[in-house]
């Protein structure tokens, strides 16, 4: 077998609040770096051409298609994937007696908004960005915010309901606090 020559870049990436050093081929997309080099397979792919929204992650709190961003571009930026969506960071969870899902994750599971679950990580990221910007997003605003994410199972309706339920719960929590 002829040897493979693979030059790799070495970079520190801030993923889900943890800074991790990673080496990867410079042409790799953020999607590939996350899935293949950091083993964060929660982020899925549907086309790898920027057409379906499945690979959406948060980059500095904005939803981005990780298949259209080079890993190289992400140094110094805050990357959040589905694995980092839970309610509290791991340390705080441990102190609070256990990890808790994000209200969006909880609502999606309860209302059947995740059927096959494949588009779900991307939609959760897009929905989180929306609710951070507009905690009382209307149905139309939800539709618009998720219009770049295809889902073939649900017809989107349960997804809207889950985002609305999560928004209500988050606003109740805020009021209590």
């Amino acid at each position, binding site marked *: 077998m002829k040897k493979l020559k693979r030059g790799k870049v070495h970079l520190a990436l801030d993923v889900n609040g943890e800074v991790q050093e990673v080496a990867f081929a410079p042409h790799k997309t953020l999607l590939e770096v996350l899935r293949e080099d950091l*083993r964060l*397979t*929660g982020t*899925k792919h549907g086309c790898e051409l920027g057409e379906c929204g499945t690979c959406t992650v948060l980059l500095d709190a904005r939803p981005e298609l990780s298949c259209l961003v080079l890993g190289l571009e992400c140094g110094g930026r805050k990357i959040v994937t589905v694995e980092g969506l839970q309610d509290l960071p791991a340390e705080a969870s441990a102190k609070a007696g256990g990890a808790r899902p994000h209200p969006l994750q909880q609502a*999606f*599971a309860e209302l059947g908004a995740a059927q*096959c679950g494949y588009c779900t990580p991307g939609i959760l990221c897009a929905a989180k960005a929306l609710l951070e910007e507009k905690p009382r997003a209307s149905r139309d605003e939800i539709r618009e915010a998720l219009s770049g994410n295809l889902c*073939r199972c649900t017809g989107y*309706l*349960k997804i809207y309901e889950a985002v609305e339920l999560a928004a209500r719960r988050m606003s109740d929590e805020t009021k209590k606090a």
Partner: protein
Amino acid sequence: MRQKKLNVVGTSVRKIDGLSKCAGVTLFADDIVLPRMLFCKIHRAPVPHARIKRVDTSKASKSPGVLAVLTGRDLPVPFGILPVSQDEHALCLDKVRFVGDPVAAVAALDEDAAFDAMNAIEVEYEPLAGIFSPEDALATPEPRIHDYGDEGNVHKKVALEFGDVERGFREADEVLEDVYFYQGNTHLPMEQHAAVGWVDPDGKVVVWSSTQTPHYVHRALAKVLGMPPARIRVIACPNGGGFGGKSDPFGHEIVVAKLALLTGRPVKVCLTREEVFYCHRGRHPVLMRVKAGVRKDGALTALHFQSLLDGGAYGSYGVASTYYTGALQTVTYEVPRYKFDGVRVFTNKPPCGPKRGHGTPQPRYALEIHMDKIAERLSIDPAELRLAHLVPPNSLTANYLRVGSIGLRACIEKVVEASGWKGKFRKLPRGRGAGLACSSYLCGAGLPIYWNAMPHTGVQLKLDRGGGVCVFCGEIDIGQGSDTVLAQTVAEVLGVDPYDIRVVYGDTDLTPVDLGSYSSRVTLMMGNAAIEAAERAKELLAKAVSEKLKVPLTRLDFAGGRVFDVENPETGVAFAEAVVLAEAKFGTIGTVGSYTPPASAAKFKGSGVGPSPAYSYTASVVELSADPETGLITVHKIWIAHDVGRAINPVLVVGQVEGGVYMGLGEALMEEQVFRANRNGVHKIPSMLEYKSPTTMEMPDVETILVEDPDPNGPFGAKEAGQGPLLPVVPAVANALYDALRVRVDEVPITPEKVLKALRSKDRRFGPKGYPSIPMPDPIRVKPPWEGGTGAPETGEYLRTWTS
């Protein structure tokens, strides 16, 4: 033991894997990473029809990082999902039959290296004439795409007649005839197909795959690899959407197993989105001619249905698809005499197969528009017309389908009421319209794909001393929630919390066979098997508890995690203690259950397709606007009522209904799998951007009404929900368009261009002009039950087996 009220069945418990899916923890096939894993890429034919003159892999073999290269010679044994269509090779041997046919494969250290090596494979092709339409296929018997089939490039001809339809037409007051076309479309699951092959040093092969049918993949692997099935294990990963597109065994699943055998290392393949479009196996394009005789009151006197299916390059499920385009026309409205002619041809395009509704959305679309035209001709409200002629419950149709419960009356009445139909139909201003349609679907096929007398599904239970219950079943959750249905069913019988149940699924080593997640069979068949297994475990526990508590067996109930005396509820034991008592008395507690559908009354060849233990029913009303200037259609709202028998988990059932509505709407308005005949048969739009599917911006509001008419054959009365609700949406859109603009578009998808063409045509119609004259064999003639028939053919062949 006594009948008790249901505690778990009928409640919308959160899916047992719901939070895992939302946490991104669920492992799909492409998420599997094994040490030393290699990556596979497959070279696919760039030409639609050609002899393979030479495959040169020498450059690919020397490409950096390459460990193995395969060609068709390495896997010469054919396979296919149906025993009568063993016409595929994992990699083509002598011929390629469509752009995208797999020809050679490589395994390399990483995906990029595999990609480079794939591109270094050189293939010399000797082109053959390409066939791109059914008309071409009928006119061009040579060269043949396959050397089997009924004749030339005709794969299959089916002719069945139940009663004398000509007599029926003579007795009619009106005879209406029309031609319809349903364009092909594809599943477009969000997850691309992926598989990992591995062989351990002791010689056992393991294949993980995003498949809906691990059992059939197991059989195909054993056949092609020439290995005993006992040495092969197939593990189905949760599917990131299936819709029928992952129901065939695929070449890539066999290729990674072979590459693993050759290299001794795990090998992964993940198809690109473009490859998924070419793998296809989706909805057949079908041209249909419908001739219906009716009396003035709308009663059908006879129905003659003809369908011409464009099968693409391989058999796949096509023989079954052909029969399905003629099977279910009889289960909604009474059809006293029925004739069906079906023809499937081969063309040099990606193979068609089963997509949600398998072979029935096309004829249902044609029939429901035809009913709308009949209603208009007779000046009867389309809802009233249907209500007046429904098939009665517990009856036998002309083609010997046994209908059990039928909740269609309630479905129609409820959508009519909810939608305000009576105030809308033919009463809305020009440009706005309402349309209605109905449908029915199977709850699993009555006969297995390969002929055998064994059960269609099996469930095994293992009870733990701590009160945990482990359920083993070969079913695979493709998003429909079958794992949760299984847990709820067992939890109901044993009176435990569904979250105390662990489901082990889709593993040919660990789980009893379930034939797969197709034909809407899982809830009914697996559910019945699960009830049987759980009842058997319950019996053991009850005996032990009865002895311990000195309470008669008949007074014991299982609920709330306890086993107790119904007349004295404080007297009882915890479920875990009941297991301990039973294990002490009987030994390790493990039980099994299985399910085989009831035998069909029919005995004629072809009667293997259509019978089902039960039929679900659906009615839908669509309200839309259609702009006469642009042809653009905006759907405002869809009302849908679905007879699910009993909703085991209402949230999941509504989810299936809404998903079906969504997919039906996509088929009605925009989705089409089309090819460029003038450019070698390449896919016109093999990308998610250009293959239009509804986004959040196109999806209208949907009001779902569940009708629960329990069927005696269903577990707790349950019927299916995964496929049926797609069916009425497509014709309801077409009928609503007619109500809005008084134009008929007898062809889907109904694009703005077609609406404008219809508006500008003299007959205010856009659609196929005719149906070709195809010589058909003498039909198999079977007298309907009401003419004294027994289900046996008067003339023509008897049902033997699939292989006959």
